[in-house]
């Protein structure tokens, strides 16, 4: 099974993770995203409902995507994060840079 699903619908791009967002999946996902993040894309969302672990490589991908979208005047949303991942992003002071909603939201 693929580790993620990437869908583009007009100006929105949605990445649904089927497992962890960690170093081993980043090169493939990064290449796929690079192809999709053309001018005209206004929002990228990452659905992490099935994600237990997010490491610094995964955080790096989220920040890089956020930087790209900021240049395009678009935005990135991180959806359905677990409490562990939410605390990690808060501890790293990244919730002010990324729009994050937890599973309970």
């Amino acid at each position, binding site marked *: 099974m693929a580790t993620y699903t990437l869908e583009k619908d007009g100006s929105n791009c949605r990445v649904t993770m089927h497992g962890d967002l960690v*170093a*081993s999946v980043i090169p493939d996902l990064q290449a796929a995203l690079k192809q999709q993040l053309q001018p005209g894309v206004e929002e990228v969302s990452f659905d992490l409902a099935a994600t237990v672990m997010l490491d610094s490589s995964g955080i790096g*991908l989220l920040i890089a995507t956020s930087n790209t979208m900021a240049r395009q005047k678009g935005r990135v949303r991180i959806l359905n994060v677990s409490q562990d991942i939410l605390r990690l992003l808060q501890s790293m*002071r*990244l919730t002010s840079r990324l729009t994050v909603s937890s599973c309970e939201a």
Partner: protein
Amino acid sequence: MKTHAPKHFLRCLIPSRLEAVDAACLELRAFMTANGLAADTFAVELVSRECLNNTVLHGNQNQADKTATMSLSLGRRWLRLQIADQGVGFNWRQACRTAADPTASTGRGLAISMLYADRVEFNQRGNQVTLWFDNSSTAKRHQHGNIHA
């Protein structure tokens, strides 16, 4: 990957591939659950991943003939994690003093390890790190650890 897992000790010999890090972390999850420490799994696995990713990408530089070792031992109060690679090491003293740029897409691994572990200790060369987790207090995961040579 060769694994030896007595009840309170886990040791993995890991080839220099990121997929092997994932496999080792599955072993770690099973070890934590088997020892009644499921609540601490996220913190210990996260730090293990950060250190193992560094051994593969930086220490062993993706060289297939090199390996890393991960040892996890559980005491009454402390959980001790040790990770070593076959690389030349790095200047951990300088790295520990460098704050991560919030806009950068890299450079957070060491900061995360220091954030989640209660104590972090490198060997002089910088190709082995030992980390301690106080397994009596999950809340301590969010305090900064101390660095010792």
